């Protein structure tokens, strides 16, 4: 942070460069005008914007040069309403997010801030950046509303004008809007309806046509009914104009809610709400010069498309139904990663319960001790994430198939994380015999952090789990991908035969799960069309210290492992080899 004399020196150097005409340092009295912006030093002067001379004031607060200078247009309405200009004249010339300031060059920062402000004003006066109004509409909307009220929206945001529902408690403001109450229950993963006492009435969702550009309302210039009539007349698609007529009624309602869907340049829509009093919906289509002013409402989106996309998930993946077999350390992490990636429809199968020994390696910790893993996972997910659909079976997979409680062909994607290759090879064969088969991910860990593997297999294509165990000379039976040399046993029998387990850490499980989910997503999105095996390689210090030997494959570099990710495929594989495939 800079002291006053240093700041004066910086501003003095800046003004000497003549970017501002007639520079004038603001007195402490003059600075009071910007009290809400906490400016402690400022200079103002004149600049030319398209041949019009205006005053710009550039100031800093105490965090400068670790933060951007603040630039004001004086007077604020010198150019009327233009994008990125706030009511007090403050110019949003840069989004502070994602910037790096060279604090060694404070004068340079001032110059750059002024230059960008001038460009912003030029674009505004020429009308070149009016699209920005649409991209930041919610910001202007909130600023324009005198008494801000919010409602939660669960409606599907698309291009179809339609009737929706508004819900509220008797005597209170509208709380939320939705296409049906089922969506709201789905958000809360609730099978009961906790909103049965709410009053429901009809409302309209009106999406404006793509490319619509509107000047936002201002506090002193709110939208009137006639403004809205004009907006609708000019910015509805033909189809939606027809639909609006279909829904119009001449019955006056005490409260008439409209949710406008305003298109943004990057796709997507901003929702804003309007509530009319004593208005009939057919009035929206008239031209009656009515000066009645509806109240603006801030709409907060809770629809799943929006939430998944905002979380970095893929909206398209919400249609995917995934089966996760084995919900231990790796499987538990896979389940959580899938949900966060937008795959919210899951079926989980695992016969085991959470034991206290699992505490530090299972994603659920110890709070669900003695509970079946799949039950505990379902509860955890439903308490954390909206819009999920989780089916569970406390069973061995082979029994679930035998009893026909699941059909493998019903899934889009299967994860096998049982750590039991005997069962997984059996399932691999079964999956490759299906007519319509899902993509399948086999994944497992190796002991003492030496690595983890993920094998993807597409139906009716060469490359499957069996290839790893098939040798041409029939003399050996081992996993060719293994980083541990074959013929060693890793069961640590310090808990007796029934309690044998192998050492690995939670980090290994997470890394392996992440590798598996990424590969599945790549396949579901069509980026990976082959059947690779991905292997991450860890340090072998602990492994060799315990007296174990690594395989020759472990000696390969990470690059070589990656390059040879398809080299395991055996054309003579008894499961996926060409002569063994079932006819299509």
């Amino acid at each position, binding site marked *: 942070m800079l002291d006053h004399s240093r700041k004066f020196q910086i501003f003095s150097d800046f003004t000497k460069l003549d970017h501002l005409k007639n520079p004038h340092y603001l007195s402490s009295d003059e600075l009071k005008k910007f009290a809400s912006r906490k400016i402690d030093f400022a200079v103002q002067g004149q600049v030319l914007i398209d041949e019009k001379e205006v005053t710009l004031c550039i100031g800093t607060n105490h965090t400068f040069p670790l933060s951007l200078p603040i630039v004001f247009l004086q007077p604020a309405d010198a150019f009327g309403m233009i994008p990125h200009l706030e009511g007090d004249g403050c110019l949003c010339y840069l989004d502070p997010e994602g910037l790096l300031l060279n604090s060694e060059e404070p004068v340079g920062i001032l110059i750059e801030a002024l230059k960008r402000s001038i460009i912003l004003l030029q674009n505004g006066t020429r009308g070149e950046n009016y699209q920005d109004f649409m991209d930041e509409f919610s910001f202007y909307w909130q600023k324009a509303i005198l008494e801000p009220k919010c409602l939660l929206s669960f409606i599907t945001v698309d291009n179809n004008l339609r009737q929706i529902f508004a819900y509220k408690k008797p005597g209170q403001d509208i709380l939320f809007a939705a296409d049906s109450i089922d969506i709201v229950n789905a958000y809360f993963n609730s099978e009961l309806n906790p909103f049965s006492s709410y009053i429901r009435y009809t409302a309209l969702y009106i999406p404006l046509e793509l490319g619509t550009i509107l000047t936002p309302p201002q506090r002193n210039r709110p939208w009137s009914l006639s403004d809205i009539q004009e907006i609708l007349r000019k910015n509805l698609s033909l189809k939606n104009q027809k639909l609006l007529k279909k829904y119009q009624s001449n019955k006056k309602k005490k409260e008439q809610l409209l949710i406008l869907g305003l298109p943004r340049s990057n796709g997507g829509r901003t929702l804003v709400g309007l509530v009319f009093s004593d208005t009939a919906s057919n009035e929206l289509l008239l031209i009656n010069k009515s000066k009645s002013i509806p109240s603006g409402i801030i709409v907060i989106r809770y629809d799943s498309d929006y939430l998944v996309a905002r979380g970095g998930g893929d909206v398209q993946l919400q249609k995917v139904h995934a089966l996760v077999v084995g919900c231990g350390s790796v499987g538990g992490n896979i389940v959580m990663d899938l949900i966060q990636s937008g795959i919210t429809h899951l079926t989980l199968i695992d016969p085991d319960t959470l034991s206290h020994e699992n505490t530090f390696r299972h994603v659920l910790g110890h709070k669900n001790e003695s509970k079946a893993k799949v039950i505990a996972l379902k509860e955890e997910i439903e308490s954390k994430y909206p819009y999920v659909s989780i089916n569970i079976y406390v069973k061995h997979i082979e029994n679930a198939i035998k009893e026909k409680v699941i059909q493998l062909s019903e899934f889009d994607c299967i994860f096998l994380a049982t750590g039991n*290759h005997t069962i997984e090879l059996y399932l691999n064969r079964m999956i490759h015999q299906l007519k319509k088969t899902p993509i399948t991910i086999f994944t497992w860990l190796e002991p003492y952090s030496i690595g983890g593997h993920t094998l993807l297999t597409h139906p009716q294509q060469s490359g499957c789990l069996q290839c790893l165990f098939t*040798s041409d000379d029939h003399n050996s039976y081992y996993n060719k991908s293994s*980083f541990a040399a074959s013929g060693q046993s*890793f069961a640590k029998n310090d808990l007796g035969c029934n309690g044998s387990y192998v050492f*690995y850490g939670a980090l290994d499980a997470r890394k392996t799960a992440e590798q598996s989910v990424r590969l599945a997503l790549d396949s579901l999105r069509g980026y990976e069309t082959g059947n690779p095996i991905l292997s991450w390689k860890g340090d072998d210090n602990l492994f060799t210290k315990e007296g174990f030997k690594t395989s*020759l*494959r472990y000696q390969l570099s990470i690059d070589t492992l990656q390059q*040879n990710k398809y080299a395991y495929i055996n054309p003579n594989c008894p499961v996926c080899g060409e002569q063994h495939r079932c006819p299509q």
Partner: protein
Amino acid sequence: MADVQSQMIKFHEAIKLKRFDENETLRDKREIILKRLNSGLKKLDLDPTPKYEVIDQGSYAMDTGVKPLNGDYDIDVGISFKISKDDYPDPLEPKKWVYDSLVGHTKKVEIQRPCVTVYYQISGEPAYHVDLAVYSDKDNNSDGKIYLAKGKEHSHKENKIWEESNYPSLINLMKNHFQDSEDAKQFRRIIRYLKRWKDFKFQSKGNAAPIGIGITIAAYKWFAPNKVTNPFDNTTKYNDLEALQHFVGAVLSNFQMVYSEGVWTKRLEVLLPVAPGNDIFTKMTNSQMTVFQERLQSLFDSIQKAQKEVDPKEACTLLNQQFGCDFPIPDEKDTAQKRSPAIVSSSASA
């Protein structure tokens, strides 16, 4: 194509002559002779008693020995006296020291041209013999070279010579030929295969058979490892039959037309890579050389046929005809669908 690598390895195990440190009987015999030499030299009352160094040489030292078919094992030992050849113009003198020290040790001890040989018999049959080559040590010669004492007792004077010889360094040359130890193992297997073939196909005495060291040096020059590395699991699979086919092919292609014994004929010349640098096969007559080439060609053809065979039993029968009865022919049980191990440990968990 049948995979006969496991039969090749079994064959190698059957014919491989273990090195001294692994073969107690031969090691003991060698020690007894060396003890006898030591005490015998002292008894000769030479002044001073000559000092010497014992050098391992021959196929034992190079780890390329094969079990002899006639049961007559041979042991090669170098006795390098700390003497200058200039002080002993007659190379027979130090050879006689050795002979005199050992004579009477067994029924038969002979001075041969390149060495002194001690023969052992069991039940009247030759059991093994020890060849002791006599050298003048390099540190005692003004030119720093090693010399071999050559000549028999009644040889012409011109045949009694000190011949420059660097056999001892041949051992190192062979040992360090391949950096990869598995490549080196295949190298030695190929030498042994061909040496056994030679013993089996040339059972007569004399120079009719190509000598073993000639095969070893030929392999040193013309053998190349034959293997395939799997890029996925980084395992390496050696193919000895293919390596042998390439090697035999290379030997055949090195038969050159030369003018010898007054005629133009095809001969194989293999020069020793160390002093004296002579052609190892020089003692073979033209007609012996022709037989050698014909039999090599027959071996080459059999290998090629075996490679094309689908049935390993048929392939091995062809090879058995070339290498003799130690080459295993799998029976029906072996060639039937092999069974993989049914219960193995796994390093996977989740």
